């Protein structure tokens, strides 16, 4: 057990058996190699599977690695075994999550200031789903809890690290265009509005708390009853 091939083979077997994301340090310990070395081997493996276009791939979440199916095979898997229906997060949950993701560590008060509405129950729900967690306490008055996102959050949205979140400054510049481009903004807003209103009338109008999946969207035929398996 010293060749790169046999180390990678051991990691494949371990990831396969483990099912859940396998921590590189834990995996490395088994083979008496450092976390850093383990990550290097696992990254190599990940690339191999991608390059060979295999039906299964390796997903990285921070320093953990997991075998998953390639997304192009979703249809066949669904045909084969009607997997557990996935339920989308509600719009309010997503908004709170977006604020937590970009502003973390952030207090509930700060989130509520952005949204103009209370969000204690939404935060509770996100914490229960392990998408957010307490990251400590602010030094402000009352020492409010600071929230941040979890590894489950990364996994849920398909990010390997928080660095993969789309740059929020781009979003900002997209909105804050100087006066002379106002017409362009307006045009942009019209299209946004159209998408938004369609979504609202079709999808969200009937879903009070948890949002019903939009028809026609992948994995959404599912409907909204089954709990998201996590």
């Amino acid at each position, binding site marked *: 057990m010293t060749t790169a091939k046999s180390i990678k083979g051991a990691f494949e077997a371990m990831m*396969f*058996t*483990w*099912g*859940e994301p396998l921590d590189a340090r834990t995996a490395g310990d088994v083979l008496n190699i450092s976390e850093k070395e383990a990550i290097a081997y696992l990254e190599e493996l990940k690339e191999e599977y991608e390059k060979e276009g295999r039906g299964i791939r390796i*997903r990285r979440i921070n320093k953990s690695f*997991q*075998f*998953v*199916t*390639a*997304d192009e095979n*979703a249809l066949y*898997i669904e045909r084969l075994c009607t*997997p557990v229906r*996935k339920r*989308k997060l509600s*719009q*309010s949950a*997503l*908004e709170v*999550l*977006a*604020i937590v*993701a*970009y502003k973390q560590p952030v207090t509930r008060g700060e989130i509520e200031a*952005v*949204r*103009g*509405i*209370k969000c204690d129950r939404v935060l509770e729900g996100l914490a229960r789903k392990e998408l957010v967690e307490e990251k400590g306490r602010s030094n402000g008055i009352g020492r409010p809890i600071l929230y941040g996102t979890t590894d489950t959050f990364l*996994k*849920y*949205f*398909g990010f390997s690290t928080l660095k993969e979140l*789309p740059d*929020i400054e781009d*979003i*900002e510049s*997209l*909105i*804050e265009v100087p*006066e002379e481009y*106002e017409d362009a*903004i*307006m045009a942009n*807003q*019209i299209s*946004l*509005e159209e998408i*938004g*209103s369609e979504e*609202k*009338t079709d999808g969200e*109008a009937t879903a*009070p708390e948890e949002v019903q999946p939009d028809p026609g*969207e*992948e*994995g*959404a035929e599912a409907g909204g009853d089954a709990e998201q398996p996590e």
Partner: protein
Amino acid sequence: MGYKVRLDVFEGPFDLLVYLIESARMSIYDIKVSEITSQYISYLEEMQQMNVAVSSEFMVLAAELIDIKSKMLLPRSTDPEANPEAEDPRTNLVARILEYKKFKIASEILREGEIANFRIYEKPQEDISEYTESPDEYLKLDIDQFVNAFNLFLARKKKIEEIKQRYERIERQKISAEHRMQFIQDLFKADPHKKVPFSEIVQDKTDRYDIALSFSSMLEMIKQTKLTAEQKRIYGEIIVGATEHINEKIVAESEPAEGGE
């Protein structure tokens, strides 16, 4: 405009406001406050008529809009003193709407990721019960612990050695106490009336055993009424004197000495 949309689909007052602004094809940077305020309020009223609970946050924003609307009616720029920070009464509102929109867009990006990720499947963990049922007993041991444990043992061992030595010394003392008493007796031979500080009785002041031996010998002789001793203050020097019995024969140890002093 027909708002065939229920209030509860809006994620909050900003969500509704943004919806109204965009529906009216208005620029966020130039909100027609009067128009949007009446739309916003009539929307809330409509909801109340339909017995939909309108949360207080929606009312707060309504009040803010009315406030801005009234400020808009005042001649601006002519009176910068009144509100030097935000010359345009809408400035703060616009900033908040933009901040909200930013995260609204971010949430849409997250939604895309969520849906794309629904196409990826995991597998459950294999059955590993054969391993989990027999946990490895891993010994937690480090060198410091090992050395500490050994040092503790050594300390205890040393203690035992001390006890042994002490008993040996007590044996020895029984012999040598006689010599020490003889020595004390000799001190008073020339002058039975002299007073001797205890420290003079001790021959080797650096040896604790010698100190203790002298002390016990002195006590023994007091007991045998050969000596008197007085101490003026606690921890003070003990002054030893002789009695008329000083020259009587030395007895190694008097019988009822069991309980010490």
